[in-house]
């Protein structure tokens, strides 16, 4: 007998399964999957304000601009204002913006270990916790929000949803193929392993800047 | 003021430790129950609720004593113990002991529903607003684990203490932390127990209170024993029943 069958067999024995209870269990499982019951959820009002407040609480910085066309200039100003490099790696989804026009040296594609600033979009943003939801794919490699020391994320205002449940619902509706990686990012990477003292930039970005558009 | 004895009978479960070590606690409890307008009865054949056996894993022994306890106490409208851990045993663990004996389980549940820790009874059931004792001095209250987490005894003793004009109530830090008694734990793992009770003593002394009051004699002996071993002869360790009944001296 394979180990798999042995383990499953023991689970069934422990549960005292018979054919009919197994059938009932399968029905329960399908019903649970169909029902997708939610637990207590976050409030669905004041999404923008809440998102900004929570994102800042997670030590993301937040800025706003009116249109997508202004994004490169905002990024450039912010980077210069913080004395950060103006060479950036941009996800393919944002390739069409005029990065060079804003004085940024932009490369479109997946980040490598040498890139210092990564610019990404986001699939959704979650007001409850100030969190970005990033789906990996050809247009949005996961490494761009991970390897660079600075991560700038463009957040269309209408992409801000109340909570993770709302974000999952929209992912199910909009995505034809489920992404390999869905990453929820709430501020810069951090650790408190030594003496429970929080230090930013453990392995991922030292800083996360959110630019809300609209 | 309710007429004495007008509110029916309350059976006092003295608890084995009080019987053996500090009878005065039981007398104080009787005084408080009577002052609340009840007739206090002490069933004579009572001994121990079975908790030591239960916590040692000797369920058979615990079950035998639980049967004895149920038979003795179930005829009373209320059962009161000056101990959160003994009342907790009856209220939360007796029904579990009889998981496979429906008849005994029903009796255990009926008994559990009318069993109370003393201050819980006085405040939640009797609605007492005045206590017979007076006491002058600062008091900090230690929340013993079973009373707090099995029975929800938290506000009741404080409410009653606040009724005593001479009491200045002070909260120690971490008043809900275990004192490290744990029944046989204190004897089986003295080193660990000693380190935990040391922290409790530090918290009590840190509060600056003249006395620490609490609702369980086991924890009391642990705390008092450690304070004295540390050379602290001044901090008073007082059972809440004695304090409320006015059976202990205050500060100056």
């Amino acid at each position, binding site marked *: 007998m394979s180990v798999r069958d042995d383990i499953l067999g023991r689970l069934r024995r422990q549960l005292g399964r018979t054919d009919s209870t197994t059938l009932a269990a399968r029905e329960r499982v399908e019903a649970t*999957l169909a029902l997708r019951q939610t637990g207590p959820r976050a409030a669905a009002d004041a999404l923008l304000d809440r998102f900004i407040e929570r994102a800042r609480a997670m030590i993301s910085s937040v800025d706003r601009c009116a249109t997508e066309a202004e994004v490169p200039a905002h990024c450039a100003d912010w980077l210069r204002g913080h004395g950060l490099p103006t060479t950036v790696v941009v996800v393919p989804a944002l390739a069409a913006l005029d990065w060079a026009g804003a004085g940024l040296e932009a490369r479109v594609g997946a980040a490598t270990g040498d890139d210092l600033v990564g610019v990404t979009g986001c699939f959704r943003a979650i007001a409850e916790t100030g969190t970005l939801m990033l789906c990996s794919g050809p247009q949005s490699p996961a490494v761009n929000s991970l390897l660079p020391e600075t991560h700038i994320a463009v957040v269309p205002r209408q992409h801000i949803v109340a909570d993770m449940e709302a974000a999952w619902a929209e992912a199910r509706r909009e995505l034809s193929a489920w992404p390999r990686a869905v990453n929820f990012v709430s501020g810069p990477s951090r650790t408190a392993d030594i003496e429970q003292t929080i230090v930013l930039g453990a392995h991922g970005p030292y800083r996360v800047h959110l630019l809300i558009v609209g | 003021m309710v007429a004495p004895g007008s509110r029916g009978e309350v059976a006092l479960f003295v608890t084995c430790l009080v019987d053996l070590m500090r009878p005065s606690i039981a007398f104080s409890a009787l005084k408080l129950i009577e002052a609340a307008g009840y007739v206090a009865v002490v069933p004579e054949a009572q*001994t121990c609720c079975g908790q030591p056996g239960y916590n040692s894993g000797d369920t058979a022994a615990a079950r035998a004593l639980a049967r004895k306890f149920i038979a003795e106490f179930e005829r009373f409208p209320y059962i009161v113990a000056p101990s959160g851990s003994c009342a907790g045993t009856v209220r939360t663990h007796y029904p579990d002991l009889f998981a496979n004996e429906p008849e005994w389980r029903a009796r255990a549940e009926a008994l559990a529903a009318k069993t109370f820790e003393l201050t819980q009874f006085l405040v939640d059931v009797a609605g007492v607003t005045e206590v017979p004792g007076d006491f002058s001095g600062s008091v900090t209250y230690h929340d013993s684990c079973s009373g707090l987490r099995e029975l929800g005894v938290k506000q009741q003793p404080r409410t009653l203490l606040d009724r005593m004009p001479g009491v200045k109530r002070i909260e120690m830090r971490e008043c809900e932390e275990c004192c490290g008694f744990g029944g*046989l734990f204190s004897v089986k793992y003295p080193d660990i127990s000693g380190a935990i009770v040391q922290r409790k003593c530090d918290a009590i002394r840190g509060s600056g209170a003249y006395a620490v009051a609490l609702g369980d004699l086991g924890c009391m002996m642990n705390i008092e024993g450690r304070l004295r071993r540390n050379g602290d002869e001044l901090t008073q360790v007082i059972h809440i029943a004695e304090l409320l009944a006015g059976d202990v001296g205050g500060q100056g």
Partner: protein
Amino acid sequence: MHFVSRVRQRLDDPELQRNLKRTRGRNAASRAAAVAAFPDFDAVRARATEIRASVLRDLDVWLERFEQKAIERGATVLWARDGDHACDLIIDIARRHGVRTVVKSKSMVSEEAGLNAALEAAGIRPVETDLGEYILQINDNEPPSHIIMPVIHKSKEQVSELFARVHGTAPKTDIEELTHEARAVLRPEFLGADMGLSGGNFLVAETGSVAIVTNEGNGRLCTTLPRVHVALTGIEKVIPTLEDLATLLRILPRSATGQAITNYVSMLTGPKQAGDADGPEHMYFVLVDGGRADLLGSEFEAMLRCIRCGACMNHCPVYQTIGGHSYGWVYPGPMGSVLTPLYQGLDKAMDLPHAATLCNQCGVVCPVSIPLPELMRTLREKQVERGLRPWSERIATKLWAWVAARPTLYALGTRVAVRYLRWLADGRDRIQVMGVAPGWTAQRDFPAPAAKTFRELYAERRRGGGQ
């Protein structure tokens, strides 16, 4: 070494005691603040408990369902009987893909299995990348002392000395500098490794995914950069839907560190897809039994709900006194006192279920409502049933119960006991050395009893003699 000697050693270690004191109560305070700021906490806790309990009721079917989805998405699902078997499977995977270096993010199952030692013996180099786990690995593979804060027992000075020795750098005691030094050492490891090994906080049946929560981002790096990703978890980790994940993520970080959410939550589903610029080419799940199946349907089933948040140890007076290493196996604190005897054998951990005051701080804070003290008590019961307790203890409880069932004898016994104790006290109000309970008087005085038992005094009062 015996539990009691391990404890003695830890209590006598001033450095450890200083380190324990520094963090004692801090996590509990963070959790309390997070709970106070989140009005739905109790409702979420109830729902989280229900989710975990409902999965266990149908664990066989949920696992099949998870496996089917994971396979559909191109992952390989392997089943391991126990830790050793899991090591064999992982070494096989590594050999098949020509792996020389494995970067690891935190996995308690890997600790259970002793994976690092097994990999090294097979000529494969494991590199721990969680800062805490990394510190332990370079300190001669020291075991963790906490399930989410593995080096809670260490001071920055100890870390500094270790880094200076191992990295050959100048000693530094600034925690930020230490952290960034580790980052610099580990970054090339991520970029060069052939395989990433992660644990898994949850397995989502709906999508066949593993969900991983981290703050450092090392979990993301381990599961994104190397060619091969292996997720190693216990078979109990399945949850039904993405909605359930959302619920559990509201309670796990709050219970663990008081965070509303961890910095990263990654949901990984299968290997790299057509057109993807990144991600592993191969993804494996290794699902470990290791004693879990036997708990299902038993009186210990509730323990399988555990989501490894660490709240129980953060609130345990015993853990906070003796530290995680005293417990002797990978899981410390209340959850360890239940799991160790269950996974390692009742007779291998005789003390753990007893070394607890049953104060129930742990049960109150557990996010999935596991009645930990009740489970420890049930383990005590099992020890008694199997005749594992010392005979003196068994006789003592039996005798106590026998006497307590006989009121007249009992009354006589207590009268004698009181007089004996008074004689020991010898006119003082306390006893300082007591032969029958040396453990008591080793640590504290034993207050002397009153002159007579309540029973005697009450009888006198009734006769009109007393009061």
